[in-house]
């Protein structure tokens, strides 16, 4: 205690260095993130887009863009709920198997009874898809599952299908493929995080439970799961935030159209459409503000879980 006080007293005279050291971060943040963010919010209240070569606006329209987003008064716009719903659904079908399998693998790897060999190899391999360019991965799937692609040829030549299946034209298959890709890209990462969580649990707890004659199911629900909760929540919410940002995979797989009938258009793909040729800063701004509100709510949960972990 004495020592700590001493250091604090001494470091007071160094206060200016604290400001100097953190200044670059905050200056760059202000210029390249905060200012654009505020501009985005500002834009969301204006009619401001390009029609061919003419620029329409900027003209103050209040909450018109938001109304359009929610389809309160506008024809021709798909209500934002659809894209939000798509995003959540596409996240769920990838994340659900991801969490179940990752939990399973984490338990396998940490089980002293099973004593799995070659863990380093398996971990290396299952984490690998996470590092791969999502757009390239998605393009590979696009080629594999196209009408003339190898999967269809395999199905036809083996007699399992009489004509090519339009994998990339049907809602069920497109969504499943997106889910599968997200699963493949993220289950290794989740496994490693959960594993570290399980390894952090005091071994003696498992020991004494075993001596008490608890079954492994009981151990899982009464010891592992409750103690793993903080990490599980962290992994879960960061996955959700990643899910909200889903873009590359569905964008490349559906050529940016979210086929069929916008059933695989995510929030960011929708945002991206406004940023393309039309440069519809007004509508794009409104979508961004909505995204911001959603992630802010989710972040507050992460924030809480981090803080409670630090205590």
């Amino acid at each position: 205690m004495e020592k700590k006080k001493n250091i604090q007293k001494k470091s007071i005279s160094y206060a200016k260095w604290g400001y100097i050291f953190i200044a670059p971060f905050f200056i760059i943040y202000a210029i390249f993130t905060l200012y654009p963010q505020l501009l985005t919010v500002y834009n969301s209240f204006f009619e401001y887009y390009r029609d061919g070569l003419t620029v329409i606006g900027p003209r103050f329209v209040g909450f018109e863009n938001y109304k359009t987003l929610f389809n309160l008064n506008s024809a021709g716009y798909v209500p934002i709920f659809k894209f939000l719903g798509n995003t959540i659904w596409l996240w769920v079908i990838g994340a659900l198997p991801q969490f179940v399998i990752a939990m399973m693998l984490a338990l396998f790897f940490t089980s002293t009874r099973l004593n799995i060999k070659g863990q380093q190899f398996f971990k290396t391999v299952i984490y690998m898809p996470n590092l791969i360019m999502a757009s390239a991965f998605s393009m590979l799937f696009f080629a594999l599952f196209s009408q003339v692609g190898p999967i269809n040829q395999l199905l036809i030549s083996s007699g399992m299908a009489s004509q090519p299946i339009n994998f990339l034209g049907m809602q069920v298959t497109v969504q499943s493929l997106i889910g599968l890709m997200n699963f493949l890209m993220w289950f290794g990462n989740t496994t490693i995080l959960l594993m570290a969580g399980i390894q952090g649990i005091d071994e003696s707890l498992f020991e004494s439970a075993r001596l008490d004659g608890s079954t492994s199911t009981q151990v899982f629900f009464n010891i592992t799961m409750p103690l793993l909760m903080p990490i599980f929540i962290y992994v879960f919410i960061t996955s959700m935030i990643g899910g909200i940002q889903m873009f590359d995979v569905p964008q490349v797989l559906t050529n940016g159209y979210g086929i069929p009938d916008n059933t695989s258009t995510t929030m960011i793909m929708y945002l991206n459409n406004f940023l393309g040729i039309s440069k519809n800063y007004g509508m794009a701004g409104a979508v961004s503000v909505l995204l911001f509100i959603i992630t802010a709510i989710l972040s507050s949960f992460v924030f809480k879980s981090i803080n409670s972990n630090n205590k």
Partner: protein
Amino acid sequence: MKDINKSAQIKLTISRIVVYAILIFLSFLCLFFFYLMFINSTRSHAQLQGGFTLIPSNNFFTNLKNAWNDSDINIPVGMKNSFVVALLSGLLTTYFSALTAYGTYVYNFKLKKFAHLFILAIMMIPSQVSAVGFIQLAFKYGLTNKLWVLIVPSIAAPAVYFYMRQYLEATLPLEMVEAARIDGANEFKIFNQVVLPIMKPAIAVQMIFSFVGSWNNYFMPSLLLNKPNVKTVPVMIATLRSADYSKFDMGKVYMLMLMAILPVMVIYVILSKSIIKGVTSGSVKG
């Protein structure tokens, strides 16, 4: 007693077999697609249209040549652009995150707590949220097709800051800074010569993640870069893919995809151990 032991042994063996089967299946799934990508990069467009095989063909160098000579893209330039952006982003993000983390950890100043909490609060906001304003400003000030616009913002990386801060708390004793001061070193020198070496493992891990992240990044570059001489690899893949029908060559696309993935794979194979360790060490304090 012996029987119970025996049946338990059999049970264990069976569950082991099942577990290994699952692990091998999942590993196969993860590796299969890369293998396929490699195989497809050795096959010509006609062969690719003609069916599916697991045996490499002999068109690797033809594809390489075709992709290399494609007039819409310039592979060496694309690779160089991606490399420059990824490397410089990585260097800036790790150095300045470490600097910021050191600033809020070692020094006492009025806004210390506020600065720390502020960065944690903005950590989860996706970069896409500022994209609209960013793009607008880029067009307004003529900053499109400039690579530094993709690099400089990486100085402010809240998640990397968080990792560095966690690492500092765990590894840097404040007495060490004191001792260096007594030796007469100035503050910058202390950071660069005493603290940075201690942070090497954390910097290496974040450098890799940052490099891979910006190497693979598609969203911002696709919106900002449209001149051939500044395009990065992911943008080039998109260009090749949207080529019109007469020029479209799937062999070329696979070749470019392979080239896009290869550098990351090489880094990963060499450093997989520390990468996997790095996944966990900064995320949550266990």
